[in-house]
């Protein structure tokens, strides 16, 4: 939380700005990958009394949605998205301490990870970024994740979705086992898969509920699975 002194200092240096202007600056700084401007805009939002959740969703997430569109259209690539992510997470780090839990509405909880034997996580991190921007509560298991870890975490958290990523043909083969085990355990979670060697037909063969060929599409698939 900002100290009273810092709040006072910000207030004295603070040029009066409308709520819309601050939200616009949050979004723009994410789109441009400008970490410092994003941090300043996040602090300005707090000083201006903007609800933190609104600042995240209508500022940061809105910016990330634009980034996601640009990525899908082939105008942004991984370097641009990673810079935007840096800015977004910097803004979130400031705003999340001011979140009022009762105001947070989330489409659902997702457990995500790269399956065992696979350490390629850029794709998974892009998906995580866009799911976070879309408001999902994302639990990231990281990479080289054992099947049992997926299952236990999904059951423990009562997650809505289990999202698995693989870049190798040798690692993807554990996905049907994870899906089977989740069903056996009576988990209510839907499953979705992604990664270069996957496809619609392979996902269907594995028994997954959803598949996306890229990060932008993953949000649509997830929204569809939770019927948001």
């Amino acid at each position: 939380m900002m100290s009273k002194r810092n709040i006072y200092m910000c207030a004295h240096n603070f040029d009066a700005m409308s709520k819309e202007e601050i939200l616009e600056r949050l979004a723009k700084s994410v789109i441009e990958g400008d970490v410092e401007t994003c941090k300043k805009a996040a602090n300005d939002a707090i000083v201006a009394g903007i609800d933190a959740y609104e600042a995240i969703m209508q500022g940061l997430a809105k910016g990330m949605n634009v980034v996601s569109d640009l990525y899908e259209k082939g105008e942004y690539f991984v370097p641009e998205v990673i810079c935007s992510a840096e800015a977004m997470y910097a803004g979130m780090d400031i705003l999340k301490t001011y979140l009022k839990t009762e105001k947070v509405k989330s489409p659902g909880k997702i457990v995500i990870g790269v399956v065992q034997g696979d350490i390629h996580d850029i794709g998974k991190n892009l998906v995580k970024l866009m799911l976070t921007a879309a408001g999902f509560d994302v639990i990231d298991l990281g990479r080289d994740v054992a099947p049992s870890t997926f299952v236990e975490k999904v059951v423990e958290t009562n997650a809505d979705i289990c999202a698995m990523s693989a870049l190798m043909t040798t690692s993807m083969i554990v996905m049907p086992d994870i899906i089977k085990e989740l069903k056996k355990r009576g988990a209510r979670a839907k499953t979705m898969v992604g990664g270069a060697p996957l496809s619609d037909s392979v996902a269907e063969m594995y028994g997954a509920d959803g598949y996306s060929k890229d990060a932008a599409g993953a949000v649509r698939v997830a929204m569809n699975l939770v019927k948001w």
Partner: protein
Amino acid sequence: MFVNKMTPAERIGALLIGQTPDRVPVMPFVLGYAAKVCGMNLGDFYADGDKCFRAQLLAMDLHGYDQTPFYGYAAIGAWEFGGKIEFPYGPGHSAPIVIKHPVEEPEDVDKLEVPEPPAGSYKESIKVCRSAVKLGMPAIFQIGSAFTATGNILEPARMMLWLRRQPDLVHKVLRKAAEFFIASAEYFVKQFGAERCIAFDGGPTESNKMISAKQFGEFAFPYINQVHRKVLSLGVNVILDHPCADQTKNISYYEQIRAGAPGIYIWNFGPETPLELQIEKFGKRDIIMGNVDPPSFQNKPYEEVLMLCKENIEKGGKNPRGYILGPGCEMPPLAPPVNVHALIKAAKEYGRY
């Protein structure tokens, strides 16, 4: 029933000098698959060049394809520049992975030294090459890509961030990576003679799933071009180039790499790049290889794989300078052997000249 009229060496040799072989040659881009089909641990395959050669030789004999043994993997660069890799002994692993990158902070870049060859994995690669040359096969060694190697040195996500935030640092590492590949090529040429060498290049980090064509032009093209020009100037006459994953948007840069350069290229783009486009861009001078979707070998039944091979022969066979049937990337190590057999079957059934 088709009976081979040429040995693999004669078949590839004919293609390289612009003559028509008896049938479409087959190069299944086998690496880890050879270990699996021999009952060898994948980790041993990559940790020991002698075992690597033996497994590949046995797989060649089993299937009767035209590819000869070679050593390489996508995580090249990390071990060579002082980082650490892990061999694929664990469940789900398919190739060596980087567990410690040589560069973790910006200050590490200036401390990076170009190693003397043979460094890291090249100590195993040289064993494979020696055994190959003893049997009259070419010495095939890896010359890149400098961009993918830089990603392995820096860690790919860090590299992507630095492309925007600290491009000068990325260029510094790219220069060192290029220097390393040139030094390694000089070493192999000195060991075996340029006429016995084939250089192979390629990597996934510069694919258009990761970077734009413009970024490829700025960060990947200059160094790939530099390495290729140097390798060709050493007298190496054949470069097998595998622009991994979707690099369709980078094609104009590959055309520039090729323009005016001597020798012959064997182009093996990913399955995302249509064969027709490859033929249009490179077909007058170069051999086209591919382009069957690799996961299909693992996931689809034999009959479907056979038809995919047939379709690729029908398209690729039109290349004026010659065509080799194969997947668009490494053969999945877990592919059922009958699906690798589909390549040879298709070449004999549908690829007769």
